[in-house]
């Protein structure tokens, strides 16, 4: 039997795993599209002619929309290609700082913070890690320990919601500690935006990406309470902070999504529904003998966590294998950050002290606004089946 295509599909079908219906549980890596199309005046906002002026007006209107939705001033909003760029922008501006103080970042940060801090270290900057507890959060205790170890700290990057575990750091408390010490507080709010209330007044800078809200990829923003001097120069756009011809259509879309999603009442309403769904999920996972939650003591109702992200493991099944098995069954999940999926390491799980076995087996389920209870039930059913079929006997 010589076939040209898909011997794997043939195999999967024979194992009754394949289905054409898809249920998406990887919102933490990207949201399902929200349906607002990317459109706007084509002109270059820096041009003097009418087309340019129209684009400029649209861009500034989008900026106002974003600022209004976030509770900031338009002059504090800078459009970028996404949070990765925003994070890098803030971090590398530290190279131009005269201060020799240590740059701190939490052990649970996204690679765009963690790896850039490592790069700064190689460039001669002092760098230190703020410990996280087993929920992935920075606590006043772990922050205190870091500040004691690095008394000269001048900068701290602490994410609002951990993207692998879902842990929500208590930002008001942490912000207060940092403000007292005069430490610049950068907050990656990517996983918190539109899902939990975020108060930009607590932070000196913040980064977000539009595609976590459902906008097309390639647009995000950087919030800066005060302007900084960036490392990279160019045509002077965005007050020189983020040079490059502006993505007007992207900015307009981002504004629309922020207006929609960052509305406090909506956040609260969606939070309640999401918490209910994940409550069902957690209860269901606890009933599957081979499954464990990470951390194990996560409750059905647990204010330490965002109800949109959950990490679990099924004993005897490596996380990657679970991803494949669920994929064949019609479910999209992931192991860790999509950005680190290429590698086998799970630095965040290691940072919370998970043993190698758990790190290998960990997988992430993340939901969004269109996730239904029925999807959760179906996922639990598939997990049960896979645990029996592939798991440790």
């Amino acid at each position, binding site marked *: 039997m010589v076939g040209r295509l898909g*011997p794997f599909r043939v195999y999967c079908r024979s194992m009754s795993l394949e289905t054409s219906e898809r249920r998406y549980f990887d919102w933490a890596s990207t949201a399902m599209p929200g349906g607002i199309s990317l459109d706007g005046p084509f002109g270059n906002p820096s041009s003097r002619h009418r087309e340019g002026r129209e684009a400029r007006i649209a861009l500034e209107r989008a900026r106002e929309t974003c600022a209004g939705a976030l509770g900031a001033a338009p002059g504090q909003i800078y459009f970028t290609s996404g949070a990765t760029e925003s994070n890098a922008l803030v971090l590398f501006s530290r190279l131009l700082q005269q201060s020799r103080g240590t740059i701190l970042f939490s052990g649970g940060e996204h690679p765009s913070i963690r790896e850039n801090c490592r790069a700064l270290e190689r460039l001669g900057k002092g760098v230190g890690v703020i410990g996280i507890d087993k929920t992935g959060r920075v606590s006043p205790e772990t922050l205190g320990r870091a500040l004691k170890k690095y008394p000269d700290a001048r900068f701290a990057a602490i994410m609002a919601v951990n993207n692998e575990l879902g842990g929500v750091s208590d930002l008001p408390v942490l912000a207060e500690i940092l403000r007292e010490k005069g430490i610049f507080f950068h907050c990656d709010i990517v996983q918190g935006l539109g899902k939990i209330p975020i108060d930009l007044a607590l932070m000196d800078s913040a980064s977000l990406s539009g595609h976590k809200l459902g906008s097309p990829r390639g647009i995000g923003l950087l919030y800066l309470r005060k302007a900084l001097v960036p490392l990279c120069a160019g045509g002077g756009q965005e007050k020189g902070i983020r040079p490059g011809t502006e993505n007007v259509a992207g900015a307009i879309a981002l504004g629309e999504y922020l207006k929609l999603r960052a509305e406090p009442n909506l956040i609260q309403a969606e939070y309640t529904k999401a918490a209910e769904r994940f409550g069902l999920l957690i209860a269901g996972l606890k009933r599957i003998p081979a499954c464990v939650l990470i951390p194990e003591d996560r409750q059905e109702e647990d204010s330490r966590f965002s109800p949109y992200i959950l990490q679990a493991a099924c004993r*005897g099944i490596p996380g990657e294998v679970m991803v494949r*098995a669920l994929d064949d069954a019609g479910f999209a999940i992931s192991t860790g950050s999509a950005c680190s999926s290429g590698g086998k390491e799970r630095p965040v799980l290691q940072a919370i002290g998970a043993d190698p076995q758990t790190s290998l087996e960990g997988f992430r389920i993340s939901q969004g606004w269109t996730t239904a209870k029925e999807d959760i039930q179906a996922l639990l059913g598939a997990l049960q089946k896979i645990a029996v079929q592939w798991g440790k006997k």
Partner: protein
Amino acid sequence: MITFLLKLGELTLKGGNRSVFERALRENLRYLLKNEASVKIIPGRGRFFLRCPEEIRPRARDALGRLFGLSGWAETQVLEKTEAAILRACVQEGRDLAARGFKTFKVEARRTDKGFPLDSYSLCCKAGAAILEALPALKVDVHAPEGKIHIEIRERAYVYRNAEKGLGGLPVGTAGRGMLLLSGGIDSPVAGYLMAGRGLSIDASYFHAYPYTSEEARQKALRLGKILGSYTRGGIFYSVPYTEIQQRIQKAAPQPWHTLLLRMAMMEGAEILARRQGAKGLITGESLSQVASQTPENIASTESRVSLPVFRPLIGLDKEYIIRLAEKIGTYETSILPYQDCCALFSPAHPVLRSKPAEAMGLYEGLDLKSSVEAAIAAAPGEQI
């Protein structure tokens, strides 16, 4: 039209059945040139000739570089057998060498036509003199010349420079078919290549354990198969689903034996497939003592289920040497891509090192895998490589 002179290798040692080998060589070359109509392959004693339009040159060069059975080859000038023509041709080759920055040269001549007035030695001297006169910047070095100019006097006269080294070996297919146990690693493709060089045409079997192993890993193995296929007149790549077998071994057998028992099952499966395809032997990339499953005792256990001969061309080779071969044949870069073809879950922490075949056999038979193996082989789709 251009002409390539092909030097036949080991097949010239064959006796009465030499024509079988020569025919295979011709057919293999035609296959490598994708049955290009404008190409003519002219057999001769000890030398074959390939004539093709000039625009086919790159394809011809590629094909000749993948053809087992040649000891060497070169693009050659074809001339009338006169001294003047030969010397002119030699000077032209010398000019070409000089243009490419060669500083020293040597002329080598051989003649099968003993009726030709000049003997080999005289030919060399005259040609050398002519080249030196035309190109005074060049120097003769008979010990370690940078460039070599060859003259061959046969039914025509041939002049060429810097013959390419051929792959050697015997034409693919002259020894029958072999079934290669192909993994995504560095070793097994090299093993397949070496056995193809001894005349085996190659089919490959890849044992996967989806979803424990990924589709990317299978694609990687398939890519390796295709690279190998470019030397071996293609073949069929079988993806054999061994997930259930892996799981049964994991469930029922002691952990230190898992890898070994799996390898026994793979050999059994490969043999069933080999017999179905008419293959005469199995081929593996085993190299003695390289990993735990490749101690002498474990190799004996691994093959205890099969009766076809198992060819292990790498058994006595160092890893470094194998890597160099892999680089040469073009599989190394693909082999080192990070897609595992074995899940960490199934790799025992303390594998058995010195198994006794009788014990291995006993454990294996206790698992009663035969019908699962047969089912997996029957379900294995094949793809052309």
